[in-house]
């Protein structure tokens, strides 16, 4: 038999870890009236953070109680060393918006953790359909940059939906990316405006981007729908509508990639203590403090369920028979990093929360 096995990485295993580091705000640029681009530089000596286009990181600005998630707005492989670009939409009352409103913030230090998420280009060969809306444009740009860098030989359609022309910022860059596309394939870009005044000079398509997708793109006979992949990035209603349109047209559901940011309304994952082997892999991908904690057991609620974890007492820990790992639903940011990192399938939002430990029999 051959002494050396063929090197074929198992794609299901994680190949890069979440890194937490500090970064300085290097540059700030207004893209539109309500959109800001920030370039952060990791502080010297901080561990390398290597993401893929499509993934995201979480930023914690000084004084903010919890981190906010932002996709890498440029293909990380093409950033200057140590730099990471994010696009932030300013929303009234938003915490990060408030912080950004408090000054230009250049030179200030923020916390950065990533890469997170499994969203990204796939390895299929069929046509690519990108539908971006609102803040979803930044991650779409990163995906397109990566596709150009890799010279993916696939036809592509890129749709950017916005309200008015004042909300557009990427047109020139998109045209440039389309021009750099693999010469053997086509890349078409369209910006679609839903609320542009009728009397403006806008000559491009109008209406909902998802209607345009249905009526103008999916009817294109040159597009092999059955073999196509789609990337949907933007507001949840847009993603839902585009998903419906694509499925109706025959795009395989498994090839519709949705850049959905989970929030506290979705259930937090649970560590099944019976499956957990305490290998610490999940602890090494914690994007924020306290999302996974060690406990010495569980307080039992009146109904027999979990009332909460018992905190470890430093200096009085007792090893295997005391320690359990617990996800705190309040601090969990629903990034799924721990689920992806666990080699033992011990973490899932569907698992019941049980009070059982080696010391607390069922």
């Amino acid at each position, binding site marked *: 038999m051959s002494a050396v096995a063929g090197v074929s990485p198992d794609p299901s*295993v994680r190949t890069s870890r979440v890194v937490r580091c500090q970064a300085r705000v290097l540059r700030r640029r207004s893209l539109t009236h309500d959109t800001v681009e920030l370039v952060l530089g990791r502080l010297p000596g901080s561990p390398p953070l290597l993401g893929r286009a499509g993934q995201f990181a979480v930023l914690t600005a000084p004084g903010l109680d919890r981190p906010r998630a932002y996709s890498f707005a440029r293909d990380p492989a093409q950033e200057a060393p140590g730099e990471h670009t994010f696009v932030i939409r300013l929303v009234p009352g938003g915490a990060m918006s408030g912080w950004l409103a408090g000054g230009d913030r250049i030179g200030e230090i923020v916390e950065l953790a990533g890469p997170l998420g499994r969203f990204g280009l796939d390895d299929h060969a069929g046509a690519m359909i990108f539908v971006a809306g609102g803040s979803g444009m930044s991650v779409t740009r990163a995906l397109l940059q990566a596709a150009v860098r890799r010279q993916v030989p696939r036809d592509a359609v890129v749709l950017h939906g916005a309200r008015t022309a004042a909300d557009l910022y990427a047109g020139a860059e998109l045209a440039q990316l389309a021009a750099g596309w693999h010469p053997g394939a086509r890349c078409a870009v369209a910006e679609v405006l839903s609320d542009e005044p009728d009397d403006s000079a806008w000559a491009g398509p109008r209406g909902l981007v998802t209607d345009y997708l249905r009526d103008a793109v999916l009817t294109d006979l040159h597009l092999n729908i059955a073999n196509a992949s789609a990337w949907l990035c933007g507001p949840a209603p847009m993603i839902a509508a585009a998903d419906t349109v694509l499925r109706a047209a025959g795009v395989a559901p498994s090839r519709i990639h949705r850049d959905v940011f989970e929030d506290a309304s979705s259930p937090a994952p649970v560590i099944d203590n019976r499956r957990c082997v305490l290998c610490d892999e999940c602890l090494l991908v914690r994007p924020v403090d306290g999302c996974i904690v060690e406990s010495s057991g569980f307080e039992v609620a009146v109904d027999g369920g979990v009332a909460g974890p018992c905190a470890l007492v430093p200096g009085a820990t007792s090893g295997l*028979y005391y320690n359990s790992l617990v996800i705190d639903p309040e601090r969990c940011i629903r990034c799924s990093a721990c689920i992806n990192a666990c080699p033992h399938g011990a973490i899932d939002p569907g698992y019941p929360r049980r009070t059982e430990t080696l010391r607390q029999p069922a």
Partner: protein
Amino acid sequence: MTASHKLEVPPGHSLHHVVCPHDCPDTCSMLVTRDDSSGRAVAVQGDPTHPITRGYLCNKVNHYLDYVYNERRVLYPHRRVGPKGPGARFERISWDEALTTVTDNFRRIIAEHGSEAIQPFNFSGTLGQIGYWVMDNRFWNKLGAARLEMSICIHAAFWACMHTYGSANGPDLAMASEDAEVIILWGVNSVSTGVHAVPFLRAARERGCRIVVIDPRPTRTAWLADWHLQPRPGTDAALALGMMKVLVDRGLHDQDFLERHTRGWRELIETRLPEYPLERVAAITGLAVEDIERLALLYGGTQKSYIRAGHGLNRHHNSGQMCRAVLLLPALTGAWREACGGAGFGRLEENWNPFFRPDVQRDELGDRAAKRIVNMVQMGRALLHDIGWNEEPLDPPIKCLFVYNADPANCVPNVADMRRGLMRDDLFTVVHDTMWTDSCDYADIVLPADTQLERTDFHGSYGYYHYAMNRPVIAPLGESVSNAELFRRLAQSMGYVESSGDAFTQSDEDIIREHLLDGEKNVLVDGIRFEDLVENGWARANYAHPARQWLEVGWPTPDGRIQIWSDALAAEDQDPLPVHHVEMEGQEDPLRARFPLQVLSNASHYFVGDSFQTVERLQAMQSRPTFEINPDEAARRGIADGDLCRLYNDRGETFGHAVILAAMLPGVVGTQKQFKGSNTPGGINVNALNTEVLTDFGFAPSFYSCLAEIEKSDDATAARARAAAP
């Protein structure tokens, strides 16, 4: 970089293969990211392409960088100033001065007492072949040092296999998991001591394989199983023989296999098995008759069965026979006929034996085979009372103890005697270690050792069929050196180099290329090229080599048969058939009237022997030793969970905190082996309680043959002072 096809790293960084060197069956392949501008390793993770590692590491090695860049590292040579013992003080010296001091003492001792008075003490601090037992042995062979019986670990099981199957192993757990219908984990806590077994076990169970865990203790490994059986400790031979009797009585044994491939089956069936009726086995093991029968029928109902036995079986006074009885089960059922079938403690024998060779260790440099041998298990009495092999007096006494890859102040049984022996004024002690261990407190000279990120070495795995090569990723920290480099320097300082051929001039890579990858002398590496290891870091063993197809070519035993009856054991005055012996200081010892608890000192989930006890995170998770006891035992003594307790017998005492576990057997107390004594409340670990009595055969320690009593304690301060006193 050669590993770079496996993982993307950022600009300015490079990726490197590293082999985990710690004492574990998994021998993981790690990918280490280096910041090339600073030369510092910045990330560690499991190699996702490795068939066993599968992209993840254990809770110990996940924190490897905290081990490498640790403030407790020895970075420079040091000389002790002031008295020996806990709290000893040291000052930094140059390597030249250190080497001169050591070799001047070697010369003085050789002149005054002969070279046999120089005693190496080393074990598995690194499992790299070169650092474990290549360059050091060349040096000791040239010097003519006393030999060391390196039997502190799995030697009872090792010799049980050697006396039964010869140096022959069957499938590993990963292979077995593909097709086995029953897997028994017998005396092994894989979750804590070889976690990469777990996904294989889970996958096997998901496709319908039944998993049985046999362990007196509750563990997370038992949680993986369909069935957890808790026999009383030290009674597993009776259980295995009782199972065999059920199988024979029901006609479930493979008569054809026995006749073709074994020796002594008739004596076993006709004379030995009748001694193990179910009722007797139930009385010995504490298991129900129905459970023993059910286990036998589950195991014997298929030839697709695999037994992964573990260290728990190996640490009792009666371990040799116990391991042999368990290892013989697949010979009775004919499970060896199946690719997934068999039994083993990993694949110890074929992993280690092929490297003990004259061309590797250069036996011809001296006449060391004629030098005296001291068992490392009995080093305490050797130092303190000049007692050697077979109770013979050590004349001359040991005058120099040269310690590397080991922490004798914590790891040996009867460790209080060891510590007293180390206090001897006329003993010159050298410790070469990565960390400031407790043993350093007794050293005259402390030398800095490197870590796996800083050296070249070659590794087999004793759990699975693969080999791997390690090459340095970072420059050695401080002035630390590998074991191989240490012994090259000593050879230079002793003037051995010119008169020793290429023994001390071969580079580590030369040794790998010319000796360790010699496929004619070790068929399992046949076909592995040095370049493959450079490129891929690891390679699969040549498991399918025709020379090791035991069913076809016979087992490597005197008559090619499995030795149910062993003449070699008969020649050692041992029972030639597997047998259950009542364990000294075990469940059936009348001494239990005074000391009713049998002490099982197992591996902590957070440490690997002495190693990793300096890593902050791991130390924080196991900040104190624990005593795990059954609620009734605790209540009877007024002990509450978390109480500081004193565990003691006539030989000594140790302190820890109670953990009350409903699933713990009565009559048993669990605790951690090799806890760093200076981190325990009383200053000395559980090895203060056990003995230097060797196992029935295999020359191994009987750590678990230890009876004790436990009481609640208010304060360990006085005990700590007692432990530190000369």
